[in-house]
């Protein structure tokens, strides 16, 4: 697979390490009443879709940036690559 890095251009996926579903950006509020339940769902449960999947890749052997890659889990075709910081800001995560 080739990941088209927004800054560095097309890079081999072997330069990256894979973390998982982009939902891992949505860290729950630790002060919420049901924080334990929220963290259980955040940490352990996954949609695991067959089809389009937004996921976190870390460019470990490159510029050490986190990317949000939109990839089809049935075909491995990558349709979109964003900087994770941009994706997080778009979700209102602040940084």
């Amino acid at each position, binding site marked *: *697979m080739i990941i088209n890095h927004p800054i560095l251009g097309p890079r*081999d*996926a*072997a330069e990256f*390490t*894979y*973390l*998982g*579903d982009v939902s891992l950006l949505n860290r729950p509020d630790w002060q919420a009443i049901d924080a334990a*339940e929220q963290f*259980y*769902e955040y*940490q*352990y*449960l*996954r*949609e*695991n*879709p*067959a089809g389009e*999947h937004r*996921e976190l890749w870390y460019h470990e052997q490159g510029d050490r940036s986190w990317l949000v890659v939109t*990839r089809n*889990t*049935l*075909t*491995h075709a990558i349709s979109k690559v964003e900087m994770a910081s941009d994706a997080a800001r778009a979700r209102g995560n602040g940084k």
Partner: protein
Amino acid sequence: MHFSGFKVIKEALMGHKGWGPQWRNPEPKPHYDIIIIGGGGHGLATAYYLAKEFGQKNIAVLEKGWIGGGNVGRNTTIIRSNYLLDGNEPFYEFSLKLWEGLEQDFNYNAMVSQRGILNLIHSDAQRDAFIRRGNAMILNGADAEYLTADQIRAENPFLNFDDARFPIKGGLAQRRGGTVRHDAVAWGYARGADQRGVDIIQNCEVTGLRIENGVCKGVETSRGFIGANKVGSCVAGSSSRIMAHANIRLPIESHVLQAFVSEGLKPVIPGVITFGAGHFYVSQSDKGGLVFGGDIDGYNTYAQRGNLPTVEDVCESGMAIMPMIGRARLLRMWGGVMDMSMDGSPIIDKTHIDGLYFNGGWCYGGFKATPASGWCYAHLLAKDEPHEVATAYRLDRFRRGYMIDEKGVGAQPNLH
């Protein structure tokens, strides 16, 4: 039809006209007591033991393609029970004992070959860890044997003992481990289940679960609705897709594992050998091909194929312990989709929906578990309580903090 030496001789004299199909191809009935979704090794084993050991009569196995076309036909055929943790080891030892009696039990030649498995040790710390694991195995009634480098050299002179980076310092052997003809496991269970009245319905894809007031009433399929008192999902690799019909999110990601076969060679490898410093396991099939594999690719996928960096990594690991395989050519490679669970251990449990049961999360160690998985799932489906060796495989263990993390890497499925 019972297989025996006498039957083979008789058929040879009669022109082989007496062999019939091994299982029927029935139309689905409108209602069953128990429906198993998934005609793979685990699903067929479940149906077989439900009929044979638990006295259930009205059972169907639904398979979207053909039986045994998924992971039971895609693995590296290794059986073993060399686990460390209490939640796992009794289960896998139960499985190994079932393997030992399997062929006589279901009257089918599954080519169970206890040629032994050897886990190589490359450092002092690893020796400590492996001896601890061997002791845990022995405490749970399994067999384990620590071998020195000289003992290993006598049995496997072709290994790369004096490698500068990963010298072989010893090994943990389980002599009762080995290999099995994987397709024959599916066929043997299918035949045995069919003989006991189980309907094996192929080309029947489950497209939905009918759930009314918190009770599962049956399954919607490509061949219409089929009612059931109990529905058991047994589709490791695609578990999330089936359980999504019940709006259940699982502690599972689907990943691809690749496996490889070399061209046929004369006998060179006596048993199963695993590399302790990378991830590589190899055995030699009875046809002569070296059957080997390594790590999963490491990203979510439902495609039954992987990518080349993993191929390179697996082959490098093979070269590291067995330089001679560099002269063999790779004949075939393929991928299978794995349920990678959050702690690396499987799940056999009821769900919060009455009548809906779940078996999955086998990571890439499901083949060796086939008999015990089937037996324990059958026990759960028939009696509504877990078998004693599968009590730890609860679906809610992640919420309650009772993970069974054999490798100790946490909730990161691609590292298990």
